[in-house]
């Protein structure tokens, strides 16, 4: 009964956040421009343009436009793209697999490399390897994504010719999902954008693991374990790392939302046909239905992830349950 109350209040808050997201994004559209100019031919007449503006409902006050948008969205209709006259839901469904596969690869890469490197830095903080990794991580965290992407392309595609410079390669359709995991060219294509997207995340996880490990290693139970003469391998990986990983898992989960948002730049550099590229094109065309749907989707994702995390916390920790209710 108590749990249900927490759940309901959480969902209520989530709905409110979504409403705010939609209103703010709608207000923003006033500043990204007006699609009529890009939708008209070069020598369109004044009447033609006015008619187009009217038929899109853009001559109405913003409040009316927003009201119509809300009503439509609540009835499950995200509208039709101005740019290519296809249903927005269909466009997003087409692009979702590309973005999610990229995010999965980036997450796996950042965990697979970030955790061991973090452990290394924590165990031998003054070793040469640790210092090198620390220095490189500074580069990783401060280099803009598009620079990393272009450098990787120049090295691995142009100079060495090992990997493709853009696109998803050959994809296999499994129902509505298209995957690059099942072909050699698909897997090769995932590498460079995956690394580019993972880099920031990787350094974040590495630094987090390092800090947590150092923290845990100086705690009492580790010292007692050492005093008992347990093997250091057992202490480091079974006892210390396990405890250090709790916050890493939380952060990784929360970061999935930002990875999807960060993917915009990576997708543009690598012509990755995902949602980020769709959004960038919608912005340059002032394709309002697509922009609105994308922002709603990303907003929804953040809200969902955070809500799930909050609820899980409440399940795990009774103290939080009381506070959030």
């Amino acid at each position: 009964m108590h749990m249900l109350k927490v759940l309901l209040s959480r969902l209520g808050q989530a709905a409110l956040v979504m409403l705010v997201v939609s209103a703010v994004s709608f207000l923003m559209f006033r500043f990204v421009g007006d699609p009529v100019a890009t939708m008209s031919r070069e020598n369109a007449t004044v009447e033609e343009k006015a008619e187009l503006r009217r038929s899109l409902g853009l001559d109405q006050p913003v409040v009316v436009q927003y009201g119509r948008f809300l009503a439509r969205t609540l009835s499950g209709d995200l509208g039709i793209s101005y740019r290519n006259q296809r249903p927005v839901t269909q466009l997003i469904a087409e692009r979702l697999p590309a973005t999610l596969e990229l995010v999965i690869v980036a997450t796996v890469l950042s965990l697979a490399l970030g955790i061991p490197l973090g452990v290394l830095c924590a165990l031998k903080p003054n070793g040469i390897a640790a210092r090198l990794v620390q220095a490189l991580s500074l580069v990783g965290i401060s280099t803009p994504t598009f620079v990393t992407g272009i450098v990787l392309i120049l090295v691995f595609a142009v100079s060495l010719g090992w990997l493709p410079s853009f696109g998803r390669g050959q994809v296999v359709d499994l129902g509505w999902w298209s995957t690059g995991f099942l072909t050699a060219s698909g897997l090769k294509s995932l590498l460079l954008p995956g690394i580019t997207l993972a880099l920031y995340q990787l350094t974040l996880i590495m630094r987090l693991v390092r800090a947590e490990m150092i923290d845990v290693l100086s705690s009492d139970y580790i010292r007692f374990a050492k005093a008992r003469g347990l093997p250091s391998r057992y202490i480091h990986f079974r006892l210390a790392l396990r405890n250090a990983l709790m916050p890493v898992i939380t952060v990784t989960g929360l970061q999935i939302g930002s990875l999807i948002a960060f993917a915009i730049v990576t997708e543009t550099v690598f012509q990755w046909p995902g949602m980020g590229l769709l959004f960038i094109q919608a912005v340059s065309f002032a394709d309002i239905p697509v922009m609105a749907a994308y922002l709603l989707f990303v907003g929804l994702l953040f809200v969902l992830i955070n809500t799930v995390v909050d609820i899980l916390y409440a399940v795990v920790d009774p103290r939080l349950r009381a506070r959030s209710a």
Partner: protein
Amino acid sequence: MKARHVATLSVAFGALMGLAAEAKTLRWSSPTDLTTLDPYAHTESFTTSMLHHVFDPLVRRGRNLELEPALAVSWKTVKPDTWRFELRKNVKFHNGNPFTADDVVASITRLLDPGARARGNIATVLKAEKVDDYTVDIVTNGPYPLLLNDLAGVYIMDKEWMEANGALKPGNIATGVTTAASTSAVGTGPFKVESYKPDAGTTFVVNPDWWDKPQHNLTRIEFKPVKSDATRVAALLSGELDLIAPAPLQDLQRIGSSSGFKVIEEPSLRLIMLTLSAKPELKAMPGQKNPMLDVKVRQAMWHAIDFETIKKRVMRDKSRNTGTLVAPPVPGYSKDNDQPLGYDQDKAKKLLAEAGYPNGFKTKLNCPNDRYINDEQTCVAIASMWTKVGIQTELQTESRATYFPRQDRGEFDVSMVGWATLPPMDGFSVLSSLLTAQKDGYGGSNSSGYTNPQIEELTRKAAVELDEEKRRSMLVEALKVARDTVAFIPIHQQPVAWAVRDGVDVPQFPDEYVRLWFANVK
């Protein structure tokens, strides 16, 4: 019967050649993608050029951009407002359906539907009527000299296919109707669409039953859009692409010096110019008389710009400076008009003083920063040149998505415009859209408020003049008035620059269309 013989022969020939006939694939890229496969649902010249590989119009542009027969073999005007077209026989759509007059009527009717985005492309057409299976009449609203120009952009769709797929009417954003034509295309053209994946790629395969004799040797076209300039160039250099169009100006030298690649370039039809406000006052100087109303001031502004420097420094010597508002291949162009006023700071200052502005005046200059080649840098140069002669110029640049709506609303004092006269490819488009008052369908993009009674009269006369020689001389005369009164300051003609790997032979066209039915690869 004859066609069947040819077909049998070619099959036999193909079998003989057997091993020699290998697959020729052209892989190419551009920053934009096809927005849709529905030829009537967009107004972009890039998508139009792509779909030309799949569809044929009644008349098309040939190797020198001249109008030539395509699905129509001949035409004549039976009345001043009625054109009769004789259609090509034995033409088949990609699905095997024969091409007849019914397809033309259904296509024109579909394009005339109020929901069709490209409806304005045939704004003067009233209807198409079938005379017999291979004869069609097209009726215009009064005499209309540019019908063929307009029809060169009207691709003929298959009536049976449209009926079967519920696409007889075009999609409509306002009512939320979408059709199968957005994602599948059945035409009569030299290539068939094999797959269409937005942002990932579109693949075409050769149509062996095309009615025309192919001048290309391709069996397959793989088009992959790449938005990022740096990535597109890298993909060419790494051997993943055979052609990129356009190639970014800043990379031309690097591509040209890489072995195995070359840059091909020529001037495009697109002219870049500045509009000068003809309104009572400037936004930069509210409450005072607009100095630009005086022709001497407008001449001074022209004299003050050093176009050679812009060409060398900003355009890397790839542009062509111009004195008129249309490019040389376009009807209405004349060499006499194409004389820039010439860079002369002293003369500019003198003219300003004569006009009563010895200390200059203030103005704003607005430019897009993502629409034309090096648009922002060009405007930065112009602003500093004007400031040198005393015209204090406040420059503002912004993205096309916000720039053009503001220009349309007439919010600018001086602003940049590019005009390619497409799709009609005729000087009339400059006159009727930019140089005439916003009235009766004229002046659609005239944001500065410029008008001139002589140009108004000549434009309206040219609109209905069917004698081509007379019509062209009217265009030339009107554009002379525009130059003499400095209606606009023309800056330059943009270059079209592409890059290819060695062994790829693709002709370039000033309208920037990529026409791969003229492409040959080794």
